[in-house]
């Protein structure tokens, strides 16, 4: 699926630059301000509001998305640097019919309350589980240290990711 967009070039306002980004499997081309942050591109330009923002300092993990499979803080990641890259957001986790195992496990384990930090935790966890090693509890805790949750006290989040890791382990051995 390719979306071809030819936007009129802005005649006033700040200068803009073209970017083409693969977002959740859809190729998107837009003119953006050089200072445009990836999170604003996703939320404002594309209307993908699942990704949230909080600290704007790259310390809370709320805005985490995957760029070419690598977790980044989209609040401080220039859209221009995503040119030509593949970006995965929380909207791209599920196929629209079935929840991703992480999403399912977060719901089952009450691993969220207000849910504002959840997209970031999900994307961070996906990056871990997509790695070569199936993580143990210690690795999960280590990996999620950069994500803040103010509601749950973390234990249910760690449990939720552990459950999915255990399923992966079961699958690998059985």
């Amino acid at each position: 699926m390719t979306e071809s967009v030819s936007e009129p070039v802005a005649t006033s306002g700040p200068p803009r630059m073209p970017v083409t980004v693969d977002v959740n499997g859809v190729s998107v081309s837009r003119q953006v301000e050089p200072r445009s942050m990836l999170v604003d591109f996703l939320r404002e330009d594309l209307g993908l509001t699942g990704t949230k923002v909080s600290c704007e300092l790259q310390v809370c993990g709320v805005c985490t998305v995957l760029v070419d499979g690598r977790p980044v803080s989209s609040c401080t990641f220039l859209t221009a640097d995503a040119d030509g890259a593949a970006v995965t957001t929380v909207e791209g986790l599920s196929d629209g019919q079935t929840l991703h195992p992480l999403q399912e496990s977060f719901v089952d384990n009450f691993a969220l309350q207000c849910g504002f930090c959840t997209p970031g935790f999900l994307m961070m966890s996906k990056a871990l589980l997509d790695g070569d090693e199936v993580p143990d509890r210690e690795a999960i805790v280590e990996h999620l240290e950069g994500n803040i949750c103010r509601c749950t006290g973390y234990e249910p989040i760690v449990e939720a990711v552990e459950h999915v890791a255990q399923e992966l382990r079961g699958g690998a051995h059985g």
Partner: protein
Amino acid sequence: MGENIVGKSVRRPDLVEKVTGAAEYCVDVTMPGMAHAKVVRSDRAHARITGIDVEAALASPGVVAVVTAEDIASLHARFGHIITDHWILAPDKVRYYGEPVAVVVAETVAAAADAVELVLVSYEDLPAVMDVEAALADGAPLVHEQSYEATGDESFKNLSHVEEGDGAEEVLSNIAHEVTVGWGDVDAAFAESAVVVENTVYFPMLYAYAMEPYNAVASYAEGALTVVSTAQHPYMVRDDLARVFDLPLSRVRVTSPYLGGGYGSKSYTKVEPLASVASWVTGRPVKLTLTVEEAIYTTRVDSAKVWVKSGFAADGTLLAREFDLVMDSGAYADNSPLVMAKAVNRCFGPYRVPNLRAKGLSVYTNTSPASSYRGFGAPQGNLAGETNLDRAAEQLGISGADIRRRNLVRKGEEILPGKRGIDADIPADLEMVVESLERDRKDVPYYGIGFGCSASDAGAYPISTAQVRIQIDGSVLVLSGSTEMGQGSRSLLAQVAAEELGVDLAVVKVVQSDTSVTPYERTTGASRTTTLVGLALQRACADARSRLRDMAAELFECSADAVRDLPGAVAGPDGRELDFGSVVRQWFGGSAGEVTGVGLLRRDGATQKMPPFWEVGMVGVAVEIDPETGVVAVDQLVTVADVGFAINPRAVEGQDLGAATQGLGSALHEELVYDGPQLANANVVDYRVPRVKDLPRKIDLMIAERRDGVGPYGAKGAGEGTLNPIGGAVASAVARAVGRWPDRLPLTPERVWRLMNSD
């Protein structure tokens, strides 16, 4: 008792929306033709505004308007639900660093932010009072040179022992509010005491850090105002906004979508007036989203200095207690008067105190305004009361558990005269905590355990309404003005409705917090929703059932008394059964229609006595300290949720662990620090909140269900209890681990190391 749907940890449907990214939060809401606002803020603590030059900002690309106090002078440009002292935009002087001075409205957020830098505000500095000592000193500069009318808030009058003024002319000072409570002959009791213990504690200035910063989008058009915001209490915000614009309440609509956390910090009015006046001036919908730094300068938690003195008989029985609480409430009162009133009610704990004298002062300073935070007023006073009790135990040579066993009130006893007796078995809760903590106690050096008990007059003022709308297919809409901010009310109210009506949980949909659609709810605070909205909803369901019986009686041609209730259906005297949808369709006759049941709750019957319920906080912690670094590791966290009946047990546990974790944050890490006129750490790098590696080694979340609440199925509220006593428990545990008593939180590594190594 045979419930089918309540009492089970059902999957929360709202969580499914949230894990897919589909859930709409206020920050995601847009309006057609919307402009964006950024706030010009004071860079002085206390200064007279001598001029605002907006010319360069107005000329900046994309700027629509720059709104200053002058532009809104024809409005009632102040708000505040207790004292209307809070100016929307500083009119003549600024009272704290970060105070809004002007609002720039532009086509984009970036354009607005660019133009903020171009607004030139000139000031003439005034002497500032940066802490309570300075604010209370003789001849101190006044934060407010005038007094403001009180709003006559009924709940405040009822909860706070406020004496009506005697008409004498008020002397202006920096005291925003003063509260006293007491009984007996305190001085005589101290004279008779075998042991008297007094100490002073300092509770830190905190920030709630709800991860979604305050934001709102407002549209003023055709003499009506529509606002979508991060408000916990949309009805209270509506009332404030109606006063600002002199509009009928019916022409102000406030909606709260999902909130990215609240914890009390989104109680009452915040950024809604700023967005609304910007729309009023420009004629465009205006969206305003704060940064975390701006949010910190919008509302923080009252810091406190608390002096406490207690007298005991030789066996450890409490004879008298005296408290003197002083809170730094910042530049505007907001909810601090009520926080103070609650602190005074909650400081002495769930103990038999035959003689009490407690006095509280809420003080204006030139710092960011303080207001509600989870458990408000309880953590500040509890830290003093509980550490004082543990110090006394040490002097008396008895354990922390024993001194509590000796003094805890039993079920039904009053701790505040004339108020509801304690509706919980607190001694039994204590034994649960002691048993769990002792079972896993480690025998290692620098290890200590601590207990904390609290009882909060919770539930706030009981005014609540709910509606259920029965659809022709038997599905059910539940309408409530209570806000879902993560605590799980959307799911819980669905459980209650499904239980009461005997329908499947999947056909119940809960709609919340839209003042033009959902029925009145006073607040979403003080852990009230389960109890008060739950009762109103039960009544709404009963009302719907009664209407359905009446309609069925017409269809069956029998008396209404002869119609029986069945799950999701009714039965006639001849055994004929009709499900709800069939009753509605057949009564209206056109395969269409709807039946609405209404539930109203006030101070009456079971909810006559205040408070509606007592929220018990019962925690234990074990800490292990690294003597080299002073780092405090939490080895055990043990909590009891004394909730009467857990409608969704996993959700209750989630609230308890979340509240306890926030409590551990303030006990060990969190503190806003003023350095001169401004905060040194108004960001989440330097203001450190708990992270996943701070997880206690052992977590034991217990639930005590004795069906002793006035709420549905014997339920009481949850969500604040475990936060309130954590600070004291940690302080006492640290004291036992290192052999010295700390007098302040947070117990950072440096503080603990100094405590251990000072002479």
